């Protein structure tokens, strides 16, 4: 009852506070309208036989409708299932590890008494996030190159045969998962750490008086309080399950043929199609990716609501 009254008051009176917030949100809103909502009409390219008729708009409007013919290409390709398997497989691993590892690390860093040390660790883990994949792929090349790579020099030092790493698909799932973790870890921790530091210390004080151990504090206070943020991050990342980090899957494996079956994801496929196939076909792939991604968000949200209605988003 009380909540209802306050809400009404907020709605009826526009305050300075609201103006500030609106102004703050304005640039982002404009950005999304310009670059996300307006271009969405271009989705119809996926259903058209794209031809030049003047400027871009008239190209799109005057091209002939061809129904689902552009999608035919995607599904008549032998590899579409390998590609979808890769995309979903890697993303499931990324989502699980992307919650478990940063959360545990955030818990650990949160326990540190020295604020200074915590900052140093956090910054160090954050640094790789700022490197571009092109740079990372060059660094990895220095490790794995056949004749000059450090890995092979170590192998030959212990009188093992050098390996042509870029032609050994069995190692690459581990490499890719590792690279992704290494790069995204610090970024993933930020939100969790912020939640932990903003927690009310009176809970802990009360628990300590009751004789709770560190482990019990974590399990019964910190984690339950973090639950909402964890679920939020989970739902958001599930929405991206059909899109992958293009740099990771294209730049890092250096487009090696042998690694095709373990590194090609939907994004890489779309990029390759833009070079060899038509715009319509590439749009069809990207469109499918978006539709499936949207479906996954709704599904994840539905499941969350079944389990714990409080945490669901929509």
């Amino acid at each position, binding site marked *: 009852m009380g909540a209802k009254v306050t809400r009404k008051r907020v709605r009826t009176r526009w305050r300075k506070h609201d103006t500030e917030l609106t102004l703050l*949100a304005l640039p*982002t809103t404009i950005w*999304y309208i310009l*670059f996300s*909502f307006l*271009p*969405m009409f*271009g*989705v119809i*390219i996926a259903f058209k036989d794209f*031809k*030049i*008729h*003047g*400027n*871009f708009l008239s*190209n799109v409007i005057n091209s002939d409708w061809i129904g689902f*013919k552009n999608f*035919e*290409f995607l599904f*008549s*390709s*032998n*590899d579409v299932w390998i590609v979808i398997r890769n995309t979903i497989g890697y993303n499931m691993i990324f989502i699980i590890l992307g919650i478990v590892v940063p959360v545990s690390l955030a818990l650990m860093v949160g326990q540190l008494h020295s604020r200074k040390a915590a900052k140093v660790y956090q910054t160090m883990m954050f640094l790789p996030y700022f490197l571009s994949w092109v740079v990372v792929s060059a660094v990895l090349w220095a490790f794995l190159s*056949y*004749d000059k790579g450090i890995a092979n020099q170590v192998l030959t030092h212990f009188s093992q045969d050098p390996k042509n790493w*870029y*032609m050994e698909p069995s190692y690459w799932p581990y490499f890719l998962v590792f690279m992704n973790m290494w790069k995204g870890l610090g970024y993933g921790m930020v939100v969790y750490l912020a939640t932990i530091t903003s*927690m*009310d210390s009176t809970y802990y004080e009360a628990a300590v008086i009751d004789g709770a151990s560190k482990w019990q504090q974590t399990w019964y206070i910190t984690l339950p309080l973090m639950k*909402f943020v964890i679920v939020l991050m989970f739902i*958001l990342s599930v*929405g*991206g399950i059909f*899109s992958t980090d293009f740099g990771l899957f294209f730049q890092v494996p*250096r*487009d*090696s*043929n*042998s690694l*095709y079956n373990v590194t090609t994801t939907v994004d890489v496929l779309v990029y*390759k*199609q*833009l*070079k*060899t*196939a*038509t*715009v319509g*076909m590439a*749009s069809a792939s*990207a*469109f499918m*990716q*978006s539709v499936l*991604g*949207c479906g996954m*968000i709704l599904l994840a949200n539905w499941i969350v609501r079944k389990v714990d209605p*409080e945490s669901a*988003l929509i």
Partner: protein
Amino acid sequence: MRKRFKAWLNAPLFIGAIMMAIFGLAGCSGSDSNNAANNTPTENSGSNVGEGSGEVPTLVWWTIGGQVPANFDKAMEKINEYTAEKIGVKIDLRVASWGDWDTKINTIVNSGEAFDIMFTNNGKYSQQVNMGAFTDLTDLVPNTVPDLHSYIPEMVWDGTKIGGKIYAVPTYKDSSLTQYWVFDDALVQKYNIDLGSIKTLQDLDKPFRDIKAGEGKGFYPLSLTQGEGISGFFNDYDDMTLGFQPIGVKTDDSSRKVVSVLEQPDIQAKLKLMHQWYKDGIINPDAPTKIEADPYRPFFSAQAFPGAEVNWQISAGIEKYDMVQILGPIYTTSTIQGSMNAISANSKYKEEALKYLELVNTDSKLRNMLAYGEEGVDFDYVNDKTVERKTDSWPLAAYTQGTFFNMAVTKGAPEDQWDQVRKLNEAATSSSILGFALDISELGTEVANVKAVWNKYSYELITGASDPEKRIPQIIEELKKAGMDKIMEAAQEQINAYFKS
């Protein structure tokens, strides 16, 4: 605590942001191809400059080249001064860098960005024409620019035809293909290689093994990259401008039979030899993932003409390269389509653009300015027909612009260089299907599919990294699933129809 989160959630802004994020994800990825379109309005201005009467129109010409140097604008100003006076046209020359060109040109064409002239080649041309991007020049050329029409041989014009129509002005130069093998002379002397006896890939076996034995473990006589392998490896087969090597017609096959190239015994034998070399350390082990070639290679294969070694010697930093001609000269439709300039279907100045291209091909002064840059800064005239380059920073690629035969020779190359090239053209044989270009408008899905399969295997096959005896059957099986048979049938039908009339 929970209350606080609830409050968070209730804040309309927060929900708005989340919704935005969610839809943003969907919107963004659904429209990769159109983001570029948002940029077009600013670029549109190019063609409109000359709309007022009496003003000199400025044409937008997209071409390929390197990093634009500081004096580029000044050099362009001089070029424009000259042409404005001569034919009343200026150009706004835009240079896509070597690495970007593929993607950039695709984006420009697909987004409908305004341009007047565009450099194109056999990898892009038929698809762009198929999309309707270029003006049909068949009637315009003889009527508007008769000098240009008579300057370029009929055979070369024929090579640019698609469905019997001309859509681009070919650059008449080494339009026939001559393939050379190039050796570092120091190694030739050291290992007593008899260049005269080298005719086939098999003949390279002994020299390569001698070099490998002499130079040691870390030295690879045959240094390859993933994209190219040995350049010209499939040259015996005319690819019908499809840009897809596994299907072709043998250039000397008078019955004009479309064959599956990878299944031909000669190609298989060559691939087997490559694989052996790869295993024996003659080819660099990182070839299938190597993207950029080293400046110095002990041996390489290239399409070239007499005098071409001058530039290679400079960039490799060695004394001397020896060139051995191993194939050609031969005309195929693809070799002619290796370099052309097309005019946009939406250009307001089609005739002006064509006249400009005529001037490039007939006026030596303009030709040299485009090829070598600003006189006195980038180059000096030694005499009327020879220039000395003072910088190596002029970014434009001479081969993309127009004919070689009215262009000055660089000091150091033979003075009669272009005459030699002309002789090569005159001596060239023709592919049995010269003039034919495959129409892929009904084969879109199949072509895209087989190209995807070939991309998946080609790097390792053409660099010798994979065993052809195991890999070829696998590739063929996948290609068949992807629709190769349908393409071959259609190609054969089209060829039969084309040569019947």
